[in-house]
């Protein structure tokens, strides 16, 4: 197998050749491991710069692909942690070992934040970083399982669960729960990608009673739904989510009927970007039936993402535990180094 290269990775991202976010995460981790293992660097700072370059390049070309960027941020954090533990734990941390409060809350909005200084050349830094990355990889691969296991504790018998679009995690979650519980699932089809059809097919194959509905019927059906469980593309730092089209309508309806909305997400989707500012439009031809030409004066477009504000989300189901949207900011400090963020 050819050694992973940045260019290849970015091209692959661009051409949307990954089947899921999980595979993106794994491949970006492979790229980072490769850089750590093989690139020429002496000090921690050089390594940090190298890693951050990946982040910069990806964000320049594909700013909405947050998963690779999150992986880079995590790797940066790992490097910084390993460096400080190598050096004997001397760093600008509090005595309790947590980053100080200003560090947590204040991110320099102008960007170009300086990376923490790790100037000492430590011989075993490389090995230790690689080891830590390997641990992280194991955690990544287990995240599916860890999330699915929580299914039983969230669903009771004879529930009606609403989901939408395709998400492998949600599928695993529901499949696992279906072994011990009997419930119905309603799937919204999720135009214009219509991945909901795929989800409905998979769920019915597993033996779960499934009903496919159109997106416009989400509000009518919501009055009878007990829970909404969806996946996401990105979790924003304010606790909101950025995901496929249709989620916002779904979440609003859930809020209207006071139906809890759970988001199944592994930790690598937690991102430091705050708002819904990055959204782009796709070709309108996706939504027009092939044989009806519309007059050219009509503006047709399809957005890529939908933003769900944090007040509509009840809780995030992650590897370790459930996280409330209001607590996401704190979780981010555990994952990423506050100073290493590049806007």
């Amino acid at each position, binding site marked *: 197998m050819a050694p992973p290269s940045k260019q290849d990775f970015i091209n692959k991202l661009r051409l949307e050749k990954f089947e899921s976010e999980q595979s993106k995460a794994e491949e970006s981790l492979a790229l980072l491991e490769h850089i750590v293992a093989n690139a020429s660097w002496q000090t921690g700072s050089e390594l940090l710069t190298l890693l951050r370059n990946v982040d910069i390049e990806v964000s320049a070309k594909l700013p909405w692909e947050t998963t690779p960027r999150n992986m880079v941020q995590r790797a940066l954090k790992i490097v910084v942690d390993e460096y400080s533990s190598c050096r004997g734990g001397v760093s600008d941390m509090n005595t309790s070992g947590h980053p100080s409060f200003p560090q947590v809350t204040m991110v320099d909005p102008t960007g170009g934040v300086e990376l923490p200084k790790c100037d000492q050349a430590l011989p075993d830094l490389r090995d230790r970083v690689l080891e830590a990355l390997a641990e992280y990889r194991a955690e990544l691969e287990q995240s599916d399982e860890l999330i699915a296991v929580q299914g039983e504790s969230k669903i009771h018998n004879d529930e009606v669960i609403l989901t939408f679009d395709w998400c492998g995690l949600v599928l695993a979650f529901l499949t696992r729960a279906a072994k011990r519980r009997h419930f119905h699932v309603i799937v919204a089809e999720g135009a214009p990608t219509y991945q909901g059809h795929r989800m*409905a097919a998979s769920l019915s194959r597993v033996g779960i009673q499934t*009903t496919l509905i159109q997106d416009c019927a989400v509000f009518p059906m919501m009055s009878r739904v007990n829970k909404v469980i969806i996946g996401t593309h990105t979790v924003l730092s304010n606790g909101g989510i950025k995901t496929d089209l249709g989620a*916002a309508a779904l979440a609003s309806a859930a809020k209207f009927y006071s139906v809890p909305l759970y988001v199944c997400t592994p930790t690598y989707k937690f991102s430091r970007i705050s708002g819904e500012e990055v959204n782009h439009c796709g070709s309108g031809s996706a939504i027009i*039936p092939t044989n009806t030409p519309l007059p050219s004066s009509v503006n047709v477009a399809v957005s890529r993402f*939908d933003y769900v504000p944090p007040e509509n989300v009840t809780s995030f189901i992650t590897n370790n535990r459930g996280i409330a949207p209001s607590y996401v900011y704190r979780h981010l400090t555990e994952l990423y180094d506050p100073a290493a963020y590049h806007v």
Partner: protein
Amino acid sequence: MAEEKKKLDKLCHLIDNIIIEHKNVQVPNKDVAKCPQKQTVQKNLPKSTPQTPPPVNSVNSAGKSREEIELERKARKQAKKVKKKGGDGNEDSKQQQTGKGKTEDKEGQEETSKPKKTVKVDKTEKDVKKETNKPNKTVKVDKVKPAPTPATSVPGKKEENKKKTPKEPAQEKQQQTQGSEVGGDAADGATGGKSKAELKRERREKQEAQRLAKMAAKTKAVEEKQPKKKVETHADKKSSTVEKKKKSLGDAGKSGKEKSGDKKPTKRRIPLLGHLTQPALQAPPAPVNSEIIHPAVRTLGIKMKDRVIDGSTARVISTLVALKKLINDYQTPESCDLSRDLAEKLAPNVEYLNACRPQAVAMDNAIRFLKHKVNSIAPNMPEGQAKDELRTAIEEYIKENITLASSTIASHAASLMQPNDVILTFGYSGLVCEMVEAACKDGNIVNVVVADSPQPPSGLAMVQRLAGLQVPTYYRLITDITNVMDKVTKVVVEAEAVMMNGAIQGLCGTTSLALAAATHHKPFIVLCHTYKFCNNDLTDSIVVNELGDADKVVWGPKGSNAGLLAGWQETRNLNVVSLVYDVTPASLVTVLVTEQSVLPTSAVPVIIRRNYADVLGQD
């Protein structure tokens, strides 16, 4: 005495020949078609001759003339009977021939050991030779009286009719066993007893035949219950019978699927929506010139079922026009009250429309109005005058409540618009188009964003109409509206019906717009004719709704996800649901624009009481 003896001999020969007839060799079809009886007779002779050569010959030479005449007479009778049975007779005889041919062959194979059988084998060869001969010779050679043969051949045919199942081997076996049965008897009678083994074998064959006959009868009964059973009456299409029946059983063609589709929803319950009727795939049966269902109504029913006429306003107008035609063509029978009789005549037509596609609330109201009008016709009014009155009532109803009302609503709504407003609307709506037109005339250019659901994409027609008005138009999916809401200033929608509690019934998807409007603090304006107000109070969209065509949802997506769920009706765990209507709670509606004026939703029961109390009544 000699003559009596001869008669006895003849009778014996007859019996022999009757028995042997069932074992006759296969005859080419054409010959059979022309003169079945003669050929059977023809065959009989060669068989009988080797068996009992001397008496046959002697009889042959002696009593030709009388026998000949009798034979001819009976041949004619037989031919007549065969003609009466027509195709059946031909097929039966063909079957007889083919079956017998096979039985004969099988018999020949079976009984090769014994000399009689070899004789029989010879017989077959002779039969074949004889068959190739033209039937001309048969009359003279014939000795056998055809009279008994019809009787025996008829039951034979009947049996074969009964056992006319696609199982060829079964038939063969049956005939074989028949033949062997008969052959056994004949052999017994003629030659004086077969061995025990032979008898046992024949008995076993009989039992086998009976068992197969039973099974065949069962399968036949099952097939008769099948929706599309084609009764095959042609023996030479046996194989095609098999194929056709297999096709009708296993076909995924529309008719079969419809039947199974019709059965399945009653057997399986869609969670939450099991009480809603599945969409009619076929219009209820009604002959074209039925006296009960007017042809205009029938045409309309089919159009509505196929969604050629869609949208509550269009449906109401077309229903009233069709009923007007019915009233035109109506003639009061003697000694009948026009009002009562016409009401009775209207009822099945309305039911027919309902069966084609469940009635919209607006249609319901319009028909109630008509019934009310019919009921209020005085008994002594002359027919012509009554019909005129009804006709004008209908025309006025349409004019007042639909045509004029629409323009009033449009102008009321346009007065709410401001220049450079961005309006969000859903799907195709005639009223909204009229409103936009009126606004443009007033000088307020509005931008319109049309949100549309993928199935059915009614918004495309809307966009085309708006583009024709030179209005900046945007087309978005219903899932995309939250991204547009920042720029939108007002949300305007047309209602299918308004409930007494202020809830709005609209096409499925309007509630998403209502919710988005509420979330982003934009006004949600509903346009509605007052005749669509109804006395129902709905709080959700599930109790009263209509199911749309689920297959459109399955095949809607482009690309790899199209048709993923194509087998959903057979899959137990999977349902695909397409709702037609949804109900927006009154709390999400800012204002209701009617031809009376711009109203809050709490004014709905007031209007009902004021204008429609007599029509809508106390139900």
